[in-house]
């Protein structure tokens, strides 16, 4: 699909805001050294909805996702070269922003579940303790609440002191989600959270994502198109570092308005 994007508008229409906006991307351009990974990105992500990012490998989904909690800060030469990203109206890259605190407010769950080599309980308590919580009872409550919200409590309540590595892949992934929500973030970023899970574990995580949207804003990157249609309220399609189309999921997958979107989601690419 060469040059096709050149004729596209730089501002794919943002869906009518039915919900309050939490994240806003304005005219964003992002580079790794001299190479441009994202350009002309304008996007408004509504609060307490699930927004999915789809697009072929290398189109910049993870880069944008990591931009939302400044995970790119750790990459040499990676920087915003134009535009800005706002979280509830505040520029995330303002020098006054504490990136560590930001990452508590904008949590992240990765493709490979990455529990610490500690007990199930400690995996969740750890983040709370780092955050300055010392009250044992409050920590215990928060651990239980997060495990319940992550739909894992019933499966682990009798083995909280056992190693997190004794859990199945799907349980480990839900543990990581519990860990991320224990600190009560407002946004939860997920980069291919189910790609290492079997269909049943995937269904559990998808159900969980759906439930999480009652309290959190979820932004999920997925290569699984059916997953995007199942879990998300809105879908953004990226191609070659550009946002091609952003629309309510049902509409994007039934009547996309851009031929690039059509070609990609129907599998007629290239």
């Amino acid at each position, binding site marked *: 699909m060469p040059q096709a994007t050149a004729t596209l508008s730089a501002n794919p229409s943002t869906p009518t805001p039915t919900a309050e906006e939490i994240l806003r991307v304005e005219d964003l351009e992002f580079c790794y050294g001299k190479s441009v990974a994202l350009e002309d990105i304008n996007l408004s992500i509504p609060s307490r909805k699930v927004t999915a990012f789809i697009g072929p490998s290398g189109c910049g989904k993870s880069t944008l996702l990591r931009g939302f909690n400044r995970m790119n800060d750790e990459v040499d030469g990676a920087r915003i070269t134009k535009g800005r990203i706002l979280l509830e109206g505040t520029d995330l890259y303002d020098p006054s922003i504490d990136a560590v605190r930001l990452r508590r407010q904008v949590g992240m769950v990765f493709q490979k579940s990455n529990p610490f080599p500690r007990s199930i309980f400690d995996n969740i308590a750890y983040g709370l303790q780092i955050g300055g919580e010392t009250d044992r009872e409050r920590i215990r409550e928060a651990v239980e609440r997060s495990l319940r919200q992550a739909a894992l409590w019933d499966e682990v309540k009798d083995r909280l002191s056992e190693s997190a590595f004794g859990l199945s892949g799907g349980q480990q992934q839900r543990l990581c989600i519990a860990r991320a929500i224990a600190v009560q973030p407002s946004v939860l970023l997920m980069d291919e959270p189910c790609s290492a899970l079997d269909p049943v574990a995937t269904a559990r995580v998808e159900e969980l994502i759906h439930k999480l949207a009652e309290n959190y804003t979820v932004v999920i990157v997925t290569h699984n198109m059916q997953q995007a249609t199942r879990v998300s309220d809105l879908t953004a399609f990226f191609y070659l570092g550009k946002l091609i189309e952003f629309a309510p999921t049902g509409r994007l997958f039934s009547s996309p308005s*851009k031929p690039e979107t059509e070609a990609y989601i129907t599998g007629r690419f290239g």
Partner: protein
Amino acid sequence: MNQRSDHILSAYNDELAALAALRREMAGITLDNLEQARRGVLERCVEPCLAAIADDEQVNRLDAEIEASALAILARFHPVAGDLREVIATMRISTNLERAADEAKTIGKRGRSLAQSGATPDLATLEPLFEQAVAELADACRAFDTKDTALAATIRQRDKDLDKAHKAALRTYTESLPASSDTAPSSWLDLLLITRALERIGDHAKNIAEETAFLVGPAQS
């Protein structure tokens, strides 16, 4: 990039192509049946009427086949966008074709009855109605096959014209009924039912024509 290009998954591609082939076959047979019924009525000939009646079974079978194959595609390949709209549109077109073929069968039955009756009823009024209904259905199917939204757009007005012609025909028949002496009452009924069947075929053609715009959708190449 061409959205009409092949799907990467060849099995999916083949299934979509097979579904489209079934749809075209069903449209072809339905139009044939209608053509046979027209000949049977206008030429007062029993044989073609019988063909229109008998071949309706084939259309019913294709309708069932299209439904089964569309369901299988939905279950196996989860079509989206243009593919999804094509599958859904094909199911709806199939329903309309099945009903249009039922109407052709009705015309066949009435044509047989007319041909067997001794009287010579007024067939001149029917001729243009047949002309319009057949052309409308044929164009509606062709517009969908070729994604010709302009052709599809003409159908709406043409169907209104057919409706008017249908009403005018009914008037002609009811007005001339008392005056006419050499036409049996059952033949008048045959004419009325054929007229109504043609009007309904126009309605199905209109429904099919509307699927073209749905199929093409908002994506602009």
